[in-house]
């Protein structure tokens, strides 16, 4: 594809790259998510929920949607991707906009919020292009994307996300132990129907360690794994989609 204008700015603590949309509009949309979910803003709704001693709280529609999504993904990944980061996600109850949880149980929705914000911004793209926040992206129309440790791939539909320890150290938490993951992977890149699907797949692939490639293959999700020693492993789904089709002669 030919992208005429690529605009860059910072939001959600990351570099944002946008093509095919008005950067100001995208920035306003990202700020809306940041205002509700930032753990670095004491006035954000997530900070206030985490700081509350109440057992039951009324939350905003956006908060309820993100939490419902996070809980659904925790169930689908059998707790590998967990908004409590400690395996206690089944203790959270959500009925419409009423949240119930043991007081003191802290939520971390960063795992889904950034990807949701990307997907919402990409859904509003006015023409072929993409929205990338911190390297997690969603496209409208094919976009060629550089990958960690060299190489590139064409994202035809959906999104692409990379998780790992390359830039922020061991920040991904193994919910089973509640401690930073000691994965055999340095970075995992996955394709998804949305940026959220790609991000969750990449996180799960990373946190599952050696089981990651097969776990993604079982769900027909393409994944590319960069080992801590730099070795690159592509699962069958990735290899199958990226394998060049020989031209007819």
């Amino acid at each position, binding site marked *: 594809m030919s*992208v005429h204008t690529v605009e860059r700015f910072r939001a959600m603590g*990351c570099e944002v*790259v946008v*093509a095919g949309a008005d950067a100001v509009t995208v920035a306003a949309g990202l700020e809306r998510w940041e205002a509700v979910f930032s753990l670095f803003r004491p006035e954000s709704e997530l900070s206030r929920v985490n700081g509350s001693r109440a057992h039951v709280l009324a939350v905003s*529609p*956006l908060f309820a*949607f993100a939490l419902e*999504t996070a809980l*659904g*993904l925790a169930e*689908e*990944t059998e707790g590998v991707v967990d908004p409590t980061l400690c395996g206690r996600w089944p203790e959270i109850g959500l009925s419409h906009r009423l949240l119930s949880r043991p007081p003191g149980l802290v939520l971390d929705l960063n795992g889904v919020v*950034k990807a949701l914000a990307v*997907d*919402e911004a990409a*859904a509003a793209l006015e023409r072929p292009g*993409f929205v*990338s*926040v911190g*390297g*997690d992206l969603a496209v409208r129309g*094919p976009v*060629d*994307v*550089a*990958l*960690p440790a060299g190489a*590139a*791939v*064409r*994202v*035809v*539909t*959906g999104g*692409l*996300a*990379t*998780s*790992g*320890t*390359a830039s*922020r150290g061991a920040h991904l938490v193994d919910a089973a132990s509640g401690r930073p993951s000691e994965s055999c992977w340095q*970075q995992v*890149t996955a*394709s*998804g*129907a*949305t940026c*959220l*699907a*790609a991000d969750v*797949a990449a996180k799960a692939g990373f946190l599952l360690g050696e089981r990651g490639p097969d776990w993604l293959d079982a*769900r027909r*999700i*393409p994944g590319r794994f960069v080992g801590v020693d730099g070795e690159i492993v592509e699962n069958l789904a*990735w290899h199958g*989609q*990226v*394998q*060049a089709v020989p031209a007819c002669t």
Partner: protein
Amino acid sequence: MPRDSRIERARERARHAKTTLGAVALLVFGVAFVGAKVHAPGHTKGRSKPLGAPASFKRSVRENTLRSGQIAPPAQPPVASSSTS
């Protein structure tokens, strides 16, 4: 007759005055009403945006959890990059 004529002229002037005052009052009210609609706090100037995410977006997210996207070999130099953040 001249007296009737004077009274009649006075009544005519009064009618004109009342009509003019009524028209001016109506005009002032109309201008104030439109002005309040446009400028007064609490009155939206454009379409309001919902506080939550749009329903179509929510549906799309729910229908696509843990589903693969489509990738292919690159055909041009990359314009974006995927990396850990």
